[in-house]
């Protein structure tokens, strides 16, 4: 992990990254995926520890972190957008 890394992608299957510092909209963030550095320009403010999309995610698609589904998008989520309770919902324990 580079000292200046500001976001972590945990698994190569993931479509979100986790910000390890608070990041502002408009910032270009570098993250490492499958050994290669990639860039994404943030379109939302991302609080520390929160997630943002590293690819476009269509409505009704699995959001992947740790290489596993963590729920489903409730609307289209653009690359660089904050992924949280406003656009991601759990699929478990609610009938």
């Amino acid at each position, binding site marked *: *992990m*580079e*000292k200046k*890394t500001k976001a*972590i992608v*945990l698994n190569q299957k993931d479509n979100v990254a*986790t910000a*390890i510092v608070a990041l502002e909209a408009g910032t270009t963030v570098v993250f490492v995926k499958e050994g290669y550095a990639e860039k994404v320009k943030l379109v939302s403010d991302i*609080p*520390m*520890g*929160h*997630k943002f999309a590293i690819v476009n995610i269509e409505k009704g698609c699995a959001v992947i*972190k*740790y290489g*596993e*589904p*963590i*729920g489903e998008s409730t609307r289209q989520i653009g690359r660089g957008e904050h*992924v*949280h*309770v406003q656009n*991601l*919902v*759990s*699929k*478990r*324990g*609610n*009938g």
Partner: protein
Amino acid sequence: MRDTIKFMGFNRPDGKAGTRNHILVIPSVGCSQNAARAIAHGLKGVVYLPNILGCGQMGDDSILVKKTLVGFGTNPNVFAVLIVGNGCETLAPQELADGITSHGKRVEVITIQDVGGTKKTISLGRKIVKDMLENAVKLKREPISLSKIILGTECGGSDYSSGLASNPAVGVACDLLVAEGGTVILSETPELIGAEHIFARRARTPEIERQVLDAVTWWENRAIAAGQDIRDGNPSPGNIAGGITTLEEKSLGCIYKAGTSTLEEALTYASHPTKSGLVYMDTPAHDIEQLTGMVAGGAQIVLFTTGRGTPCGSPIAPVIKITANRNTFLKMRDNTDMDTSKIIQGKETIVSAGKRIFEEMISVSSGKMTKAEKLGQSDFSIFQMNPNI
């Protein structure tokens, strides 16, 4: 199994070993809790259980209460036990005593109705525990194999940092303990939801795998059948503020803390492991009910990760609080024992932090006090399925 590293602990008559040497005052019913507290008050080495149950529970719940209280009495961190009853409760104090005495410990029983009121009960109770203390202080710590350790694992007040760093680091410590022949308990079944397929496939046998999956299904269906939505309570508001959006996300971060060992056994609440290595106990995700279940099952020490911070601690088992959130560590220094935030900053590896946690676990098992112990945290609550009558 290497079985080379020792900790300094207390040998017990039943062959088990304690990391602490408490005299435990157990109120067998809520009515005698006040007397039990007064008996233990101000006496170093004497602790009491803030138990409010023991009367009015039905069926399986009454069995859980008895099993949990007996489990605390037989826990190797306890030298001797005083049971304080009222006298008319459904859980007979003598039944509790019989369950504990079989482990070779001194157990005494008094009831408020027999002794004749609270003041006399406190006076007699203090006389008994002071006599027990005289013998307890004579027992010295000895080098004991780590294979006798049952380690509970827990995470509470989780945030993004738990799954990224503190839980994987605790997982490394758990693997090191299992390599020494020790036992590790993973519990909190509702926080397996979404990650159960990954955890259960590590089971030694298909039957153990099925037991884990069945327990997860039971909890999920229980919420749905009650017309409830697990999302109302889990993740909690603090989890969500800390970046965890869904229960699946929380669970996937959660299971890292058990390490990578094969799963050897699936236990019901408050049951004692019969295998060494990694075992799973079916408990709620409620921090205190989970902690109580693991300690009743024989855990002599607990590793507890947190992102948001937690004061939680057990009356009889040291609980080491570990965070990877630097801000939480700085803000809650009096509650938090270890900081693993350098993992997230890229300045420490998960393996290196895991080794530090393992070393700290041995120090605390050998007598080093945790922050929760210094603060006198003695959280206790028994899991119940039905209303009391």
